[in-house]
């Protein structure tokens, strides 16, 4: 083969790489693109969307939280009355604690449930088809509105509901259980029902990526089922568990409708505090509560992100 044959493809490659030079000088569009302008232009739409729909409203809330209000008007100002009132009230702290309690209970229960379901799907269902079928089964409740799903608990848990009736018919109890509905129990139950899938999905995702030969290798080294779980599966699922935890904690911390419906308006959390202020048109107070809630949730997420590195999952 002659040397000319060998260089020919290389020459055509170089000319293909810079087609703009074919006309003698680079076109205007190409020059602008090569200036790095294109990367800024491509990032612009999402920047605008985020600025307009996320950053601006938050900034507005922060601004309004320093405004003043009377029982019939609100007026622009820069005063700390709203925060003083909020942080000076004993009610705020008990409501805050109640919110944290719901977040913790829901988090703990959905974590155990989510991990167990993901574990079952990953390690006990061996055909991919069945994994997909059962996984879709988990998502079916999400095909209806969460308010409908919540309300459907009420006839089930009520004083004369299905649960109490069945228990009494079976002779387990003589009196209807009062704590089944409009209680912390029913609120937590509804939260767990609503948000378990947010735990299942990320954990299932990380768990499916565990190389099955790691399990075989652990067994080869003499690990029993429980040791494999604690030494191999759980450590490797931590990122998924953390992503699920962030979902659940932020959702529960910001919720107000579940608490309102399932407690029969008898239990308050931060969301309901904000909602109350809004219904009284006390926007500055609502804004101040929102800012406090936002900061709390951000701190919680920051702590969780420090505990586990989730970058390789994204």
């Amino acid at each position, binding site marked *: 083969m002659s040397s000319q044959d060998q260089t020919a493809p290389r020459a055509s490659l170089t000319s293909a790489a810079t087609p703009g030079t074919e006309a003698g000088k680079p076109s205007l569009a190409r020059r602008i693109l090569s200036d790095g302008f294109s990367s800024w232009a491509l990032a612009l739409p999402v920047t605008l969307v985020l600025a307009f729909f996320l950053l601006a409203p938050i900034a507005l809330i922060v601004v309004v939280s320093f405004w003043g209000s009377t029982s019939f008007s609100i007026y622009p100002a820069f005063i700390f009355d709203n925060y003083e009132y909020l942080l000076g009230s004993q009610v705020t702290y008990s409501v805050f604690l109640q919110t944290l309690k719901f977040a913790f209970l829901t988090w703990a229960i959905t974590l155990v449930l989510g991990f167990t379901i993901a574990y079952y799907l990953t390690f006990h269902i061996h055909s991919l088809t069945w994994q997909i079928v059962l996984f879709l089964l988990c998502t079916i409740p999400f095909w209806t509105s969460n308010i409908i799903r919540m309300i459907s608990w009420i006839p089930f848990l009520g004083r004369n509901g299905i649960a109490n009736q069945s228990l009494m018919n079976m002779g387990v109890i003589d009196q209807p259980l009062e704590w089944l509905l409009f209680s912390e129990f029913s609120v937590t139950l509804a939260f767990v029902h609503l948000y378990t899938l947010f735990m299942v999905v990320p954990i299932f995702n990380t768990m499916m990526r565990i*190389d099955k*030969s*790691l399990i*075989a*290798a*652990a*067994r*080869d*080294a*003499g*690990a*029993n089922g429980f*040791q494999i779980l604690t*030494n*191999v599966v759980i*450590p*490797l699922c931590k990122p998924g568990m953390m992503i699920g935890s962030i979902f659940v904690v932020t959702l529960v911390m910001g919720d107000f409708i579940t608490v309102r419906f399932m407690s029969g308006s008898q239990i308050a959390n931060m969301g309901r505090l904000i909602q109350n202020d809004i219904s009284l048109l006390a926007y500055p107070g609502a804004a101040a509560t929102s800012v406090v809630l936002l900061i709390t949730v951000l701190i919680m997420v920051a702590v969780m992100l420090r505990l586990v590195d989730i970058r390789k999952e994204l």
Partner: protein
Amino acid sequence: MRSKLDLELVSVTKRYGTTVAVNAINHLFHHGSYVCLLGPSGCGKSSTLRMIAGHESVSEGAILLGNTDISQMPPARRGTAMMFQSYALFPHMTVLDNVAFSQKMKGIDKATRHKKARELLELVGLDTLADRVPAQLSGGQQQRAALARALITGPEVLLLDEPLSALDPFLRIRMRSELKKLQQELGITFVHVTHGQDEALALADEVVVMNNAVIEQAGPAREVFNAPKTEFVARFIGGHNVIALNGKRFALRSDRVQIAPGADGGLETAVASVEYLGTHVSLGLVGPGDTAINAMVPEEEFFAKPLEQGSQVRINWHERDLHPLAQ
């Protein structure tokens, strides 16, 4: 000559539903030997290895190590250890913790197990990288770590599932000589699954060629290469021609094909291709009835009387180089 640590397969069978992956194979692995299970993918060699390791149940038959039937025991109690194809190192642990894993499972305290793990890492030459995680190691280093992790259990039989397939060609040759050296130092049995005949010939004291769920031929590497018993073995082990003479089939080594223009006997062939391979020239010949024959001619000999593509040449061989194949 049997020792009490020999590994024996007694009509071991593996079925998946109606398919038979391993069909009633019998074999004796002598203690302290390096054995290669060689065969194409799907021949049952990996299933056999996994049954010995205990990661696959035995459908029928027994696996004896010494005088004990280990076929129903959990993997860690068998006296075997396995090195996995992709090494299967725990990505969230340091190399040291990976190696110390089996000791941790036994409940041995941290100081003792780390000391032992360091000894093993020293053995495979990885002691300086003990605190890294697997992702920070090269392919060859990961392999050493996996080796150390398997050896820390003090196995009598080390099972290696295609241990070199993830490495680049240069590293593969280096690691294979290290494997052989390690096996000789430790004096334990290595059972190595591979589909590369060069790897098997280079490493094995004994080669076991498998095809279609059965053992086609087993024996010392040289014996299997020089006297393949079946057409499959002759073709799979490489370097052989299968030719039909008087209704029978024979194996003939490529480098024993003589180019003898003008001589009597042998076969009349046409040269279809000429490849220069450095030490040898590989000739692709077409004989009567379109039989493809490969001849390896020493380079010097070829260029003394060069042949061109399309030229006619008569080939010949010594009678002793023809090995009759099972029909």
